[in-house]
């Protein structure tokens, strides 16, 4: 039962990992996505459609994001309701439209997670291979495609059954399939690299106090 918080965190982290993996999946045979150096960050916009089994229409949202190997991931939903999710060394924090912060999960495990994404961004396959079976291919329009299937007995396996990502210079689409037959489709656009420091509006989101 001491697992409760960890289990919840794992579920949230698994979802975030799917989102975070967007810029790390490439095949060695094809042009990999642009690497992010330690002094850089990746910025872009997203559209997410959340398909829930038994519901006809998906839950659609869009917004922007920023990912830095050194500080973490900020996922900012702008529409239909503003809200931000931050993943950094300290855990997962949700910030509502009034600036109230809510720590969803805390713990040192998140440092490892940020390191994992960063390692992948640096072109290191090792961390992914420990947790996923990886299948690489090329799509009809010459984009690369990578399918990540969580290995058994990993934290992610209980939350995500498959991650499929496609892209060229950057990841363009991600699909996260869940054990409950739900799935999230994420389309990324307007991506580009910038040099640190982070833009002030994002930097502020990473440093606020949790309420």
């Amino acid at each position, binding site marked *: 039962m*001491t697992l*409760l918080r*960890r289990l919840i965190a794992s579920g*949230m982290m698994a979802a975030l990992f799917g989102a975070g993996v967007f810029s790390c999946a490439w095949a060695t045979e094809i042009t990999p996505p642009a690497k992010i150096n330690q002094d850089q960050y990746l910025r872009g916009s997203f559209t997410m459609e959340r398909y*829930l*089994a038994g*519901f006809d229409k998906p839950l659609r*949202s869009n917004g922007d994001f920023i990912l830095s190997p050194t500080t973490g991931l900020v996922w900012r939903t702008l529409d239909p309701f503003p809200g931000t999710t931050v993943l950094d060394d300290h855990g997962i924090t949700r910030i*509502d439209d009034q600036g109230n912060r809510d720590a969803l999960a805390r713990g040192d495990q998140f440092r490892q997670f940020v390191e994992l994404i960063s390692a992948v961004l640096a072109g290191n396959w090792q961390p992914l291979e420990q947790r996923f079976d990886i299948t690489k291919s090329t799509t009809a329009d010459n984009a690369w495609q990578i399918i990540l299937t969580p290995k058994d007995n990993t934290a992610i396996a209980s939350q995500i059954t498959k991650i499929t990502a496609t892209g060229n210079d950057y990841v363009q689409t991600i699909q996260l399939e869940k*054990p409950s037959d739900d799935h999230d489709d994420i389309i990324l656009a307007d991506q580009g690299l910038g040099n640190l420091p982070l833009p002030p509006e994002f930097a502020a989101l990473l440093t606020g106090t949790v309420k």
Partner: protein
Amino acid sequence: MALRASIWAFCLILMATFAGWQLHGGFTGIDADFLSLIGRENTDPDKPKSNIETVRHLLARDSQQAIFMLSHPERDTLEKAASEFADKIAAMDGTQNITLPGRNNDRFADLMALYGPYANGLLSQSDHTRLTNGDGDALYRRAIQNLYSPATTLSSQSLKQDPFALLPVFLSDLGSKLGSGNDVIARGGRFYLPVMATLSADLRSTGTDPRWVKGAKAALQSIKDMTPDLTTAKTGQIFFAQAEATRAKADVQRIAIIATIGILIMIGLVFYSPIPLLGALLVVGSGLIAGLAAVILIFPTIHVIALVFGASMIGISVDYALHFLVLRTSDGSPRDRLRKIKPGLSLGLLTSVIGFSALSLSPTQLLAQIAVYSVVGLIAAYCSVLFLLPLVPARDVRASSPIRKLHDLLQIGLNRTFSTRPTRLIASTVIIIGLVLAAALIPGNNDIRQFGHGNDTLISDAREIADILGLGGSSTFLRIDGDNAQSRLQTGEAVRHALSPLINDNRLGGLIGLSDLIPSIARQEENRLLVTHELYDRFGAALSDQLPVNITAPTMSADYLVPDERATMILPEIDRLHSGNSDIIRLRNVMDIDAIRAAIAPINPVTLIDPADAISAQFSQYHFWAWVALGGALCIAAILAVSRYGLRSGICIFAAPAGAILIAVIGGYLFGIPQSFFTTMALFLVFAIGADYVLFLAESRNSNHDDDTRLAVLLSLISSVLAFGLLASSSVPLVRDIGSVIAIGLVGAWFLAFWMTAPDHEQGNTP
């Protein structure tokens, strides 16, 4: 005589073979757990358990857990090492399951399946406060954000059951209440990871716990050898018990060997011949073998303290051998010599058997084992004197023996102390009154924490694990009684409410009770009503607009979550929070016990229980009982003495062992030895040996072997003090205290045996 000797020798060989087979084959375990010392009273299962029963139940359950902490500067290396280590432990016989961070991931689905249907009645404290304060808007916004957040446990199922996403917050809150313990902790440049093993319930009863501990240590060493910079710590009752058992076994071997060698040297110095050594060994050995075989036959495991006591039986059984061996060859055939000492020997045995049989009435298994060991061992020693010793060639005590000379000198000194019978009668009266007063006035100290030796490494490991991981440590708990499960759950909720301020100001580290896992129906009803009014009524329509489905308010008449079998199957922790018809609230890091006591005082029926205090209180009860039993044994001895020796002589003879007990009690008090239940039980031994001394002397008084008997009693004293004096050197405080008390008492018993049986013509200073 030869036939009886052969039959008896065959019986001894049979018993030795049986004992060896059982012990070396691992069929009989050695138990060093203090829990085994707590009585197992049979009570009505429908009635609330007593404090001590609850303590036994909970500690027995806790004893099924072993906690390892692995540490390394690199997290990946640590996790890899921990995983390999966990696999090794899981593969060991006796391991039920392993908990390791990152494993048990399928549990999340089980938890959601259990709690999901009741989500609208399960509120975290913060959500409850927000809704009570009319701040449902914050929860509504959180629910909306949850719909679109990438970090969410949202699913189609959870959306139907819990559209306002209350359950994840409830579970997160519950996780906080449960405390850490399954996370990797970073501190001082190192990572720390817990590996928790749940052990089979029958591990101890089958005597396989030493094997498990050995295997666990080997696994730890192996993983340390494979992983440079890896450090480990371990804790759990199984490790402490094994360390104590190993230490006690080493003590037993040391004491038995040294005492035996000492006694053999003493006999050698008396007879200048190895043949009496053979006789003494036969008697001592037969007592040890028969006692051990009897305990093994009756009990599935032997407590180490019973073993230690068994080893000390050497000191008593050798009395019987010496009593025969010192007789002069000129006194006639072996049968004639045996006839001379048989009355005294038989009376001595009878008194000892009465004394030790009183122990068997004790509710603790340990004392029952000691009683069986002693009674059977002494009867076997007695039989060996009757059947085997007459076949051993006799040797006379040498006049030039240094011990003979010592004996003669002591006799001169003793004779100077002899008094008239009236004086002895007055002294006897003083002894009897003094004994009653000592029993009543000398304060007892039965704090169980003083009995064990403790293992410094294990204590240090336990502190480190409690400090870094928050595991182990305090075992203080609250017991909630009540007519039914729901009333107990409501009481549990009241307790949490009362103790929350103490958690907030760090006077209490935390607590977890059954009502935290399964709220009472009354609380669920209140929550459901609150959620209906403050969320569904106010924000239900707005939330429905965002969803591809209409949401409806919960039905008040729908089922509520209850602590049934299904819940227990998914939440095995429920078992740890329940004992008989009581609920248990476990407290962590208790810093201010008085504040806790004050906070729960108005809530009934709640009892604050510290296991160590509860066990100590139980031993205090046993302590009182032991004095009553000892008094009963003394009364029987007094009646026997008076009926055999007449009123005046009988009183004096009875007063000798009674006085020895008094000297042991006062001596122990003056030397700072705690007057515990166990030291009181040791007084039974003082009584038994003291009775042997005085009876041997009384039976041989005015006969031609009187001097031989005096020498035999001196030799008995030397051997007994040797054996019990060595017990006093034990590293186990309990054993040390017992040995000290007995050694002091026996010196007094020896002196009083002479003094109280002094012949009438040996009065005043006449030699």
